[in-house]
Each structure stands twice: as structure tokens, then as C-alpha cells.
């Protein structure tokens, strides 16, 4: 059933965000520490478990893949609700700080990504048309 996939996804999110909140509290910061990242790891681990007792049927998988495919539209909606006007009118200092932080960080990517050895190929997306 489709709901099995959606429900598993939702469970992963609640679990991860809860752990993220706990981590934040433990560390004494008023923020969620990696909640979404923990949720993703949990989902990845669960989807890589190849036991017979825990195996999603294709129909159930489609409940997760639907949300995965809605990702870009949701990002578009997210972009459309950003406070772009404030970002542009925040003054030269805010602009300089933001631009400089991005530029310097970009420069470091090629250096850091050499750390872990060879690069794995990318998996296919379900929409197929992505580059």
C-alpha cells in the first residue's frame, strides 16, 4: 500500500527531528542539530536493509518516490517565499558578507572533496529526464 511508504517516510522524519532536538538540548544550543540529516540516514539504512521481513513492495515505494519527485516544486515554492527584498536591501555590508562567504566556500570544495578516494556514480532518478 502506498501509505506504508508515506508512513515510513513520516516516521523517519519524526524520529530524526526528535533526535536532533535532543542533541540540541544536550549540547545546550537552541537549534535542531542535524535532525533532517539523521532522518535521511535512517531512511537510507532502512532502504538498504535487504531482509525479507522488511522489504517495501514497489507500490509502497511509490509513496516515498512521490514526495521525492515533488522535491523541486517544493523548492520552487520555498524560493518564492524567501525575503528576497530584504536580502537585497540589507545594505552593502550584508551583501559583501554574504557574497564573500559564498565565494570563499566555493573555492574550498575541490580541495575537500579529494579526501575520500574515487567518486561513486550517481543513481538514476525516477523522473529520468534530469540531467
Amino acid at each position: 500500500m502506498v501509505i506504508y511508504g508515506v508512513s515510513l517516510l513520516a516516521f523517519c522524519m519524526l524520529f530524526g527531528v526528535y533526535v536532533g532536538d535532543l542533541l540540541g538540548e544536550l549540547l545546550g544550543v537552541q537549534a535542531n542539530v542535524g535532525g533532517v540529516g539523521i532522518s535521511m540516514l535512517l531512511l537510507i539504512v532502512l532502504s538498504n536493509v535487504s531482509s525479507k521481513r522488511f522489504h517495501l513492495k514497489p507500490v509502497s515505494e511509490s509513496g516515498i518516490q512521490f514526495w521525492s519527485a515533488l522535491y523541486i516544486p517544493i523548492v520552487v515554492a520555498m524560493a518564492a517565499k524567501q525575503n528576497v527584498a530584504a536580502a537585497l536591501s540589507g545594505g552593502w555590508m550584508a551583501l559583501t558578507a554574504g557574497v564573500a562567504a559564498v565565494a570563499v566556500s566555493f573555492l574550498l570544495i575541490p580541495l575537500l572533496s579529494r579526501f575520500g578516494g574515487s567518486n561513486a556514480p550517481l543513481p538514476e532518478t525516477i523522473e529520468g529526464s534530469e540531467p
Partner: protein
Amino acid sequence: MDALSQLLVKNGIITGFVFVGVVMWFSYWLSDRITRGRIHGSAIAIGLGLVLAWVGGAVTGGNKGIADITVFSGVALLGGAMFRDFAIIATAYGANLDAIKKAGIAGALSVVIGVVLSFVVGAVTAVLFGYTDPVAISTIGAGAATYIVGPVTGTALGASSDLIALSVAAGLVKSVLVMVATPLVASSIGLNNPQSAMVYGGLMGTTSGVAGGLAATDARLVPYGAMTATFYTGVGCLLAPSVLFFAVKALVA
């Protein structure tokens, strides 16, 4: 007309689906016809979303972009943190566990380096613009990390509200710029595999910027970048008001 706008507001998230669908369709059409597929439709759609957000802010003076225009208020629901996180997590389904293990250390390292680097760049900018108070310098430096780390740090250190607003603006500039610039520089910085995407997410840290930028570059990279990026704000909130603030204080005093 009034009845229609009431209907659109009442069914906000449904209106959001129609709105985003139209934006996507128009963007893919533009991508096909005008750029002959050279600029990907999703990149155009995200760019168009930002332009619409600017229009919304300019017209209403609000802070939620196009969602401040009442009939489009549902866009804020659809693009809000809850659905965004839900969809981001969904993209992880079927991701390659081995690729993550391989990039693990570089990914973790990139988060810490990313936070410190952005903070230093922001702090130096603040000093160049004439700030001498360690609280002000740290707040702006934290804002250069993300627009959440900025206010959290500012509040913790007791900074004034205009400083906090500046730190939010710096973070916003970063987030928007990452969204727009990523697809343009992707090939020259080697952003085409899970490993560099994880490092990229950790270095940039702005979840919305990373997610948007990677989606516009190659949607298959999103889960890897988003995974490390989500740790960034937490690490930033941890380091900026503590270790990094003390360092600034020691340096300027």
C-alpha cells in the same frame, strides 16, 4: 472576484500546487524554447521563484515573498519547513550508502570548516566596515554562516535588533546566491558526484540554498548535499556564540 480570492485563500495549499505547477511549466517551456535546454528548467523555476518572491516583497513590504500577496499565501505552506524537510528526506530513499561512508570524514570536516570559514569572512567584513564591538562582529560573522545562526548568536550575546537584522540579511544573501550561482559554477568546482555534493552541503550550510542550488544543478545530488547541510546550522549555533565569540573577543580587545 472576492468569492474567488476567498476560495483560493481557504484552499491555500491547493492554490500553491497550481501556482508552482504553472511556474514549473512556464520555466520548462522557457528552458526548451529560449535556451534550447542549456539552462535546466528547474534552475529557471527556482530563479523565477526568487524573482516572484522579490515582487511579492516589493509590492507588499512583507517578509514572506509572494506569499504576502493574500491569494498566494498557500505557497508559504507548500514551501514551508515541514514539506521541505519531508521532501528532502524522501530524496534520500535509495541513496548509495557506500558513497556516504566514503565521504563521511570529508563531509563531517567540511561542516566545521564551513562554519568557521563563513564566520571569519563575515567577521572580517564587519571589521572592514568599521565595527569594533566583539558582539557586533560575532553576530554579523554568524549571519554569514546562515540566517538562523546569526539571530541565535545575536540573541545569545545580547546584540541589538538592527545588528540581528543585518545578520539575517547577510545569511539571506548567501542563501539566495548559493541557489543562483551553484548551477553556474558546478562544473568548474567539480560538483558532479555524491562526495563533492556532501562537501558542498557542509561548506555552504544554508539548507535552502544548498537544496535549491543542487536541485537546479542535478537533482540526484540533492540528498547528499542536504544531509551534511542540515548539520551546519546546529554546529553553527554551537560554535558561534561560544568558541568563535571568545576568539573574536580575544583578538579585538
